[in-house]
């Protein structure tokens, strides 16, 4: 079978059918993820009734997020009393608050790690809820600075679950058709907590006349009671309402994974850092994080500076300031109630519109900061700041729904944690620096007005996410559809290729070098990857071996998705690359190089020794020079040493980059003999070459690349009949020697077999 990829074929019914099926599946997938294209939204309660769902998860998690704020508010308000009792200065109060905030910010990622393999988000939410409740209670019995530090840090760490676990758990507990409203209700309860917390502290310290100890004990008891309400929380499983339904929709059969598929998936399931890196490669996610880092400036730091503004400009005393901040959230709750259904409609129609609306809200909120700072009337100042508070509060559920929809369910806790880190960690710190610096030069009013351009820029970034989100959503759909197709094929007993790269795009920063490249290798196959210098051959090898991560497309090894798997894990799966040029550690001896190859897999010494003996048997010259530094070997000997890696690691797939570069024909012939021997033991070979005669002399299957695109995929013999392609190798080689070849002229292309 061969395919000339450059010449467009005549209209083919089969191709049309594939395109139509892909389009249908994309539509089905979009709908499963909540993007129906329809602006109609069924009433909230009606939808829950239709799916036999209750509001319990919202109430339980909402109660937890309300009481989570008790400890922080009580500590901030009662810090002077605590410092007077325990005998430490205000400096320590600030330090303790920073420890707690740091613990809260950083704990979100480890908590995401804790739930990435198994859906136990409900359990984590319950345990952390009970933990911070007990910490609140115990704070009332703190005997000294050490105890208080421990309590604050544990409280901060457990509160990390609010970021990492709550939104993903809610997202998976309800169908996509109500998610904006679910997250909006949760956000409303969070804001209710910001009102309830200071009010409770006031009631307990004022009318109830309790000390800070008594206040913490009572708050702790309330927290414990609220935590008990959450005991019935159950994790619905990853993607119950979206990805699972999408999988089922692909073939109209219930989704599931057989034992073989599950085993394959566990072997290639992404780990914590791989997931985090994967998320940072999603354009929507990157824009949201960038925007949130600036939005964070308006989070905590703005409120702090606004307190000074109220004192300096409007001479508000403490009770009036408390009243101001206690009543302000009412505007937030009102806006959230009003906009949640509208946001839902936008999401159903097109998530891009949701982001544009969120950007607009942020723009309005930012402008209102400037207005409130400049307003000559008190009422005008209050009204404008209420708009700011309300719009920023209303943003969170919209943005969360948007970015969580383009992220695989298992990765949502990580995405949510990253969002929190950028919002409060990066944004908070930047906010303090920016506002502090402006306040020093232009006063508090000047600092508030100076935030406006930053906020507007961030709003534009957020709105611009609208252009990316549908593409990312479709990519998520395509990944899920592809996985489901493969699952079905696997269950039918179909044979899958050893390696399948599909529609790979790759860029070095802004420079795209691979365009929609597809590439397949079967078990035990010998494949040549040919092309002009700079065609993208080595880059494709990097994508396969994990040294480069594609911006689009997938890499599958025996059907399992390894697109974002770490390079060292691919080595363990059986993918080994012999890089182009001198693939050895020059200062190390030959035997040390071989030991390094073996120990990179953590293999036992006996296996490594056997591999080294096999290498020496295959390449006697290496045995003679075993104690010489690799840098002193000739070019051919260094390539032999590189190939010896394959004899030690015994990969299933060996990727060889530029085997013949700068070597004498006799040496090349010797190396090719060894490649044949390696292949004969069952290892599939991908040979990247500029030298066509070298490559085609040992392979059956050839690919030809030009300018980052695949131009030919077929039998090697058929490529020989394509002078139009092969000529480009001649011309390129003659006109511009490869930089990698150190100015040497590439081999003469005398095609013969």
């Amino acid at each position: 079978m061969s395919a000339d990829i450059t010449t467009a074929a005549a209209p083919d019914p089969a191709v049309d059918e594939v395109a139509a099926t892909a389009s249908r599946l994309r539509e089905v997938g979009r709908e499963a993820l909540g993007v129906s294209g329809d602006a109609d939204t069924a009433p909230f309660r009606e939808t829950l009734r239709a799916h036999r769902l209750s509001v319990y998860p919202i109430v339980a998690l909402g109660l937890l997020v309300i009481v989570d704020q008790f400890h922080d508010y009580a500590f901030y308000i009662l810090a002077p009393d605590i410092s007077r009792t325990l005998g430490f200065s205000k400096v320590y109060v600030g330090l303790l608050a920073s420890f707690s905030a740091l613990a809260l910010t950083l704990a979100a990622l480890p908590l995401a790690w804790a739930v990435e393999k198994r859906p136990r988000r409900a359990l984590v939410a319950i345990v952390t809820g009970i933990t911070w409740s007990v910490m609140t209670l115990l704070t009332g019995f703190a005997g000294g600075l050490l105890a208080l530090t421990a309590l604050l840090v544990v409280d901060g760490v457990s509160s990390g679950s609010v970021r990492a676990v709550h939104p993903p758990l809610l997202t998976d507990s309800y169908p996509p058709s109500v998610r904006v409203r679910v997250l909006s209700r949760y956000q409303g309860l969070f804001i209710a907590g910001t009102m309830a917390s200071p009010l409770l502290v006031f009631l307990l310290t004022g009318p109830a006349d309790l000390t800070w100890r008594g206040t913490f004990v009572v708050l702790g008891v309330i927290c414990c009671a609220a935590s008990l309400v959450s005991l019935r929380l159950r994790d619905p499983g990853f993607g119950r309402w979206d990805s699972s339904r999408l999988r089922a929709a692909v073939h109209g059969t219930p989704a599931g994974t057989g034992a073989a598929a599950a085993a394959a998936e566990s072997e290639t399931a992404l780990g914590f850092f791989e997931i985090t890196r994967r998320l940072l490669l999603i354009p929507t996610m990157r824009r949201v994080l960038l925007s949130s880092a600036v939005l964070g400036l308006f989070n905590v730091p703005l409120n702090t500076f606004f307190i000074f503004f109220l004192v300096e400009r409007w001479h508000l005393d403490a009770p009036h300031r408390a009243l101001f901040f206690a009543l302000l959230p009412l505007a937030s709750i009102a806006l959230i109630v009003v906009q949640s259904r509208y946001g839902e409609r936008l999401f159903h129609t097109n998530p891009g519109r949701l982001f544009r609306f969120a950007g607009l809200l942020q723009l309005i909120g930012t402008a209102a900061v400037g207005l409130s700072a400049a307003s000559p009337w008190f009422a005008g100042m209050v009204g404008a700041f209420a708009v700011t508070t309300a719009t920023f509060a209303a943003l969170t559920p919209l943005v969360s729904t948007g970015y969580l929809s383009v992220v695989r369910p298992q990765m949502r806790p990580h995405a949510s944690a990253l969002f929190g880190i950028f919002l409060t960690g990066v944004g908070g710190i930047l906010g303090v620096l920016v506002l502090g610096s402006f306040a020093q030069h232009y006063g508090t009013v000047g600092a508030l007005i100076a935030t406006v351009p930053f906020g507007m820029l961030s709003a534009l970034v957020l709105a611009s996410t609208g252009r990316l989100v549908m593409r990312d959503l479709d990519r998520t759909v395509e990944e899920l559809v592809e996985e489901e197709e493969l699952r079905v094929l696997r269950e039918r007993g179909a044979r899958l290729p050893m390696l399948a790269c599909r529609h790979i795009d790759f860029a070095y920063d802004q420079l795209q070098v691979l365009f929609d490249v597809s590439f397949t290798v079967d078990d035990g196959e010998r494949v040549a990857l040919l092309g002009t210098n700079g065609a993208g051959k080595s880059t494709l090898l990097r994508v396969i071996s994990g040294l480069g991560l594609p911006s689009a497309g997938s890499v599958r090894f025996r059907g399992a998705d390894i697109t974002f798997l770490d390079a060292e894990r691919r080595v363990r799966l059986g993918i080994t690359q012999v890089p182009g040029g001198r693939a050895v550690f020059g200062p190390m001896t030959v035997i040390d190089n071989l030991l390094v190859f073996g120990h990179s897999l953590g293999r036992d010494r006996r296996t490594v020794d056997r591999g080294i003996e096999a290498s020496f048997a295959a390449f006697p010259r290496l045995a003679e020079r075993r104690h010489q530094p690799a840098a002193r070997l000739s070019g051919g000997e260094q390539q032999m040493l590189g190939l010896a890696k394959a004899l030690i690691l015994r990969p299933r797939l060996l990727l060889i980059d530029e085997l013949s570069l700068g070597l004498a024909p006799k040496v090349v012939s010797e190396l090719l003999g060894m490649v044949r021997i390696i292949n004969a033991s069952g290892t599939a070979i991908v040979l990247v070459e500029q030298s066509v005669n070298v490559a085609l002399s040992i392979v059956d299957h050839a690919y030809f690349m030009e300018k980052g695109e695949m131009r030919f995929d077929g039998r090697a013999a058929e490529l020989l009949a394509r002078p139009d392609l092969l000529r480009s190798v001649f011309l390129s080689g003659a006109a511009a020697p490869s930089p990698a070849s150190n100015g040497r002229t590439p081999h003469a292309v005398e095609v013969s077999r």
Partner: protein
Amino acid sequence: MRRSLAIIALGVLGSALSGCGEGYLFRNDHRIVIDSPGSFSSVRQPLTVRWTAPDFSAPRDGRFAVFFDLAPPPPGQTLGDIPPLQKRFVRVVDSTHVEAPAFVHDTSSTGPLQDHHEVTVILLDSSGRRISETAGYVEFDVSQ
């Protein structure tokens, strides 16, 4: 592993909270009430702080320690650990009034905090150790 971590965490907390409940004040006892300056009032210098402590008679029951812009020691401890430079912000008296040190305009902070101050009155026993968590406390601003 997780069980070990839990045991360690409980151990740390247990040791940190050891002695809990002993002399802890959960409800305000109002044994010391500061009469002047008023809470969040604006005052002029020189300033005299006055308080009442109906059930505490000095020197029979002990003495009063007054802290200006300084945190007092925890219950059971003496004033011995206060650095010499900060001792000028502490007064130990038998009477229920004391003259405050001269407050200077604080240029290291910004805005309204530059002239904001606080005073804390605690009880000491005859050996100079702090008695219970009882404290009288007030914040005020000094008009320059």
